[in-house]
């Protein structure tokens, strides 16, 4: 085995094939058990969406019951409260996509500045920004709520998007990508050819750190998609809710009438489909993002 040179950009590392072929039966058994452990809840979800409330409560949880109520649940999901579910889904898409795109751009630009420009206080400003990763987001909710309220943005989409468009971890990640994926020599060469800073950043740099951009986008998108507390606090209109909030409202609205839980379970399943799709189609960037910090620094 030869050691790979340390300077290889992350985006082009490929997994090295193991030299020894493993076929330990025990390993296979353990892996299958682990797989079942992780897939069982999902399987339960798939079974439950074919039932109605009484079947959910009184039939075996891991097998189907007759008659099926899947279609009924699908129809109800689309019509409950005037079909608001798909409205929530659109909202989630809009908030997550906007937050993701804006966070990616801000992280790419700030990361570029930290990586390529030498300015006074670069080191400690970067440390302070990194330090903010350690502040739990719940601690920031009240100040964010006050800020949003005072500038009159409460109850608008901006209240959800603005706080999520800065992502200190994304900034850190982008700096690593700029450091390793875009050699400073290239910038010097381009400058000699008369290219502006903006053109160097936009036309030459960005395509080279595409992996980093997608990783940051994915991380922010997923975080925004799953965010519950921020929209709960800043939104006052059911029409503007994202899926997390909407489903929670349905699930917890139990007075004297029991909600149709199997329909809500179906809604939860539908709500993770976009994430699953993103994960399966862009999975390799995801992996890259998780290991980037570990090997480069």
């Amino acid at each position, binding site marked *: 085995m030869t050691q790979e040179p340390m300077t290889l950009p992350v985006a082009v590392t490929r997994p090295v094939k193991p030299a020894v072929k493993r076929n330990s039966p025990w390993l296979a058994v353990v892996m299958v058990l682990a797989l079942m452990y992780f897939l069982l809840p999902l399987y339960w979800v798939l079974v439950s969406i074919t039932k109605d409330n009484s079947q959910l409560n009184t039939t075996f949880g891991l097998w189907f019951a007759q008659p099926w109520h899947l279609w009924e649940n699908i129809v109800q999901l689309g019509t409950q409260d005037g079909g608001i579910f798909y409205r929530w889904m659109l909202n989630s898409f809009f908030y997550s996509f906007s937050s993701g795109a804006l966070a990616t751009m801000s992280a790419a630009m700030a990361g570029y500045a930290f990586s390529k420009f030498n300015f006074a206080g670069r080191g400690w400003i970067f440390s302070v920004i990194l330090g903010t990763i350690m502040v739990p987001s719940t601690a920031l909710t009240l100040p964010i709520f006050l800020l949003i*309220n005072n500038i009159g943005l409460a109850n608008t989409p901006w209240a959800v998007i603005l706080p999520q468009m800065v992502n200190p971890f994304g900034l850190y990640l982008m700096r690593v990508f700029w450091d390793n994926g875009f050699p400073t020599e290239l910038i010097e060469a381009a400058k000699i050819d008369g290219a502006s800073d903006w053109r160097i950043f936009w036309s030459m740099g960005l395509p080279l750190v595409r992996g980093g951009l997608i990783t940051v986008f994915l991380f922010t998108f997923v975080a925004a998609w799953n965010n519950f507390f921020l929209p709960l606090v800043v939104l006052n209109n059911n029409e503007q809710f994202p899926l997390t909030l909407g489903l929670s409202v349905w699930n917890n609205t139990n007075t*004297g009438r*029991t909600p149709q839980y199997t329909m809500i379970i179906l809604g939860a399943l539908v709500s993770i489909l976009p994430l699953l799709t993103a994960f399966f189609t862009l999975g390799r960037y995801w992996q890259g993002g998780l290991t980037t910090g570990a090997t480069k620094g």
Partner: protein
Amino acid sequence: MKLKQGMMLLIAGGAVAGAIALAQAFNEPKYQAAPKGEITLEYWSWVPKMEEQAALFTKQYPNIKVKVVNVGAGQSGTYPKLQTAIKAGTGAPDVAQVEFGYIPFFASTGGLADLTKYLPSDAKNYFVPWTWSQVSQGKAVYGIPQDQGPFAMIYRKDIFDKYKIAVPTTWNEYEAAGKKLFEASGGKVKIGNFFSTFAPWFTALAWANGAQFWKLNTDGSYTQTLNSAAAKQVANYWGRLLEKKYVSTLGAFSADFWNAVSKGEVATSMEAAWGTGSFAGSLEKNPGVGAEYRVAPLPQWKKGGTASGNWGGSTAVVTTQSKNPEAAALFAYWLMSSKASVVQGWKGAGVFPAASAGLDLPELSDKTSNPSKFFDGQNVAAVYKEAGKGVNTRFQWSPWAPTVDASFQKQMDLAVNGKQSFADALDNWQAETLTKAKADGYNVK
């Protein structure tokens, strides 16, 4: 003869008409005058179809519009949001739904308006007495009661018939019935279920036995007594039944519990008024072979007693941030006490009213719809109406009352598994939560 029969029919007819008239006479309050000018109120509530109910108010008072926002039930939505807005000093709604048990907490934040100066002085007469004492602190009134969850006993009539056991009216009879069931069924059929993971369930049963967990003293401090003799009597009783295997300890609302009920393995369950809706909603299509569900009053410690406790129930509070507290108070009061609104609350969301007049509404016992339909047409609302009258008015909560559940679960778990006695469990529950309340800065003795 003929004339006599005709007379009888007439009299009978008159009596029926009278009864109908009586049932339909809804004692509605005389409301205060509405403020003038165009007003829009914001109302946070997790009652389904609340928009329709609030629209009825605007129909009556066209200059006051209401924007309803459903941000989810209690701790999983409305409370953290309301708490944030109160802390921030901005962003709170005019009116919000808050459960009885959380009134002291939100009152202690200073975010709730005292409604006494906005309401007519006789407002309390229109609500079930104990619900009004739940929203009062001294002379101040912090909310208008919306609904209630007094306790009664849901039971399987078919099981009692099969084993020829009379429906128990006292806890002694209940234990005897448990023994008989246990012996006759070879241990398969339990008389009931002890919900060891739900402090509010236990609280309701202790409440029915006269226990008072918290007390607000005149100097503003609180006294907590979770381990009184009355509470221990209840805990020891269920502990004994558990030891003798007369009752099970299945998780509340769990599939295991519903399964056991529909299979006829659990003969009774102590349930709040809204529990009838849960039974109907969860078991309607699979009630169990030959199952007949009925509701009877809560078994009593003293023969002939009518005591009950409560689990759940909400209020509408007005926040100090409201710019139109007069309109907000009128809205909250009207919403919870007018006939049109109470009927809509019941039809739209199964809200079991806290307004006294609401309990006599014929809609509550409509045999063609749930919950009455599930109970084979029994007037279950009438049983719960009586239960509501028997709820001790002196029971109070504290600002930290909602936080004592975790400690209860922990201590009860130890008791259920034989690691400590049920009396010790209550002592430890008291000690543990007292320490925590003091650490959180509450003035408690």
